[in-house]
């Protein structure tokens, strides 16, 4: 039943399926209609569903995200596409002050079946104002749920689940991932939306990653295997809530934790993962948990410098090696 497709195509199928099944599902955003979506996610939907259900908006991120909030309050299931995470900063009030708070402020009277889809991440030399993730901003907002699919299959599943959910959900997509390929089974049962998945079992250390870094972590694990380091890769799939049980089970088994994130290191997702897993697994840890993260600097335009600001596979390999064999690494370094 599985079919090979690109990440954006998987999102497109999920949208189409949800819109077909439920007339209250509609999407809106900049160029989602006639143009077909900046990353082609809404391709073909305008022709099929018309302008009211696939709405091209003015460049008013705060305004049209707020529109989504209002529509969700009266039982619609809006899927707001914000062209990039960089522009989502203009919609923070609608997301943080309205969508995330209305359920509580209303004493539980109003559901908030709002999905906000946001491409982000460091793509290729888009410069500082188009190269960031900022997931930690949303992670710190109670009431929001955040999904970070790394594969076409997860993209398909998690978008469908987000639309079906009555909670406000941010779907963070990675700009580099849109044109990655993978098998998508459209019939299989999906795991719960926020459950973490072990992408590669291993016994020597746990590498926790998400979104694009989950792919990098798997590449790094393959490299490490050549050196007889057996890494377990946990793909979080969700940044809020985080599936601590899956993470803790892994860390309790491997006794070592390495977190990989593309976003800045300071006060980032990794800080939360390390803190929470240290609280839960302190006794099981045989080495201090480590992070491989983006540098705390706005992204430079220059390609070499851009690459230097975000984790690369060799960085992950080196960090894992150091974590597993500190004495050996130190000796090598001193000998060198």
């Amino acid at each position: 039943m599985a079919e090979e497709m690109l990440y954006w195509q998987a999102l497109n199928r999920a949208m189409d399926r949800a819109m077909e099944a439920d007339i209250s599902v509609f999407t809106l955003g900049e160029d989602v209609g006639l143009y077909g979506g900046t990353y082609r996610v809404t391709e073909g939907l305008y022709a099929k569903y018309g302008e009211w259900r696939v709405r091209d908006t003015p460049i008013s991120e705060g305004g049209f995200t707020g529109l989504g909030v209002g529509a969700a309050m009266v039982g619609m299931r809006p899927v707001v596409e914000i062209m990039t995470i960089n522009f989502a900063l203009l919609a923070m009030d609608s997301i943080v002050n309205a969508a995330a708070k209305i359920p509580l402020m209303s004493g539980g009277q109003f559901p908030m079946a709002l999905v906000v889809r946001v491409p982000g991440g460091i793509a290729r030399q888009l410069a500082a104002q188009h190269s960031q993730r900022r997931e930690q901003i949303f992670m710190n907002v109670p009431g929001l749920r955040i999904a970070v699919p790394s594969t076409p299959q997860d993209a398909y599943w998690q978008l469908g689940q987000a639309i079906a959910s009555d909670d406000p959900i941010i779907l963070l997509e990675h700009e580099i991932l849109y044109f990655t390929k993978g098998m998508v089974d459209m019939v299989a049962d999906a795991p719960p939306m926020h459950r973490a998945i072990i992408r590669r079992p291993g016994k020597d250390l746990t590498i926790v990653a998400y979104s694009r870094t989950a792919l990098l972590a798997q590449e790094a694990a393959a490299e490490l295997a050549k050196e007889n380091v057996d890494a377990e890769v946990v793909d979080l799939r969700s940044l809020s809530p985080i599936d601590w049980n899956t993470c803790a089970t892994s860390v309790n088994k491997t006794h070592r934790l390495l977190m990989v994130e593309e976003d800045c290191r300071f006060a980032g997702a990794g800080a939360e993962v390390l803190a929470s897993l240290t609280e839960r697994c302190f006794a099981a840890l045989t080495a201090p948990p480590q992070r491989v993260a983006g540098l705390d600097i706005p992204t430079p335009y220059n390609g070499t410098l851009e690459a230097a600001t975000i984790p690369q596979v060799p960085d992950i390999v080196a960090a894992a090696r150091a974590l597993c064999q500190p004495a050996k690494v130190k000796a090598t370094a001193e000998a060198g």
Partner: protein
Amino acid sequence: MERETMHRLLRDMLLARTFEERAAAEYMKANIKGFLHLYPGEEAVAAGVINAADASDYVVSTYREHVHALIRGVPARQVMAELFGRTGGVSGGMGGSMHMFDRERRFMGGYAIVGESCPIAVGIAYAVVMRDRPEAVICFFGDGAMNQGAFHEALNMAGLWHLPVLFVCENNHYAIGTEVHRHSAVPDLYKRAAAYNIPAERIDGMDVLKVYEAGGRALDHVRRGDGPQFLECETYRYRGHSMSDPGTYRPAVELKAYQAHDPLSAAIRELEFRYPSPEELAAVGPDHIARLGQHMIEAGHAREAEVEAIKQDVKKMVEDAVQFALDSPQPTMDAAWQALRCNRREEVII
């Protein structure tokens, strides 16, 4: 206008005034905490517009929304209990003074980020059009909100897609302490709606009959599918911006001038002035005469007493609301978690 409607307007405004003055007193007694933004002076706007609305219309409000909620029909008990932060409050004590919601009455919330509510109103209106229903969305905001980006983004989308929104600007002339000519390049606020092709009108927001009439007219247009409408209601708040604002930036003479134009006394005057003559009553027809005749006997001989009775009535209602609020239990942390997760139902998250 029907005498009954006039009575309702008067009663709503008296309730509003009595309720708010009592809320101020309860605030001084520390039964109400936090921010408290009161409405005295502006009653004619809420009473006029909301009474012109249908039950199927939606109301989106601001942080100065107790009176909007009351006039929309939320029982005074539930409004007062919300101010007290109790379980019996309209938002279960989770929202407070600035965040009252009543799903059943389509009261879509009070919002405390100035201008934020405008896109939300537009979203509700978008859903109304998608469902093809003859409903209007009433969006209240103040003069201060008109300088927010969210306001302009919302008006642009409403104008662009002909959405059924009645934008009601409660122009009380002050963005907290900054007077309108010091915060707006175009102080004739209604003129700014023209930028988005939205028909707009400025009315005397201290005259409830004019507000009611204009509101009804505008809502008819909106429900008929003519697109959004804009009403600027010129009004004045007698108190400061909130309980923590003494309002010293306003000259005393200005306050006095507006108080002379009190919407309540105007309504009472109007009521008496409009009281039908026996000839007018006869012209209405026998059924109405029978009904109104009875009324006339009561009111015609003791009009003052009638108004007094309404006053006593609302006073009792507010007294009862305070007692209800005092008796209502404090909400638990469990209730807060439940409210936050109200949407999850049986959904398995992890």
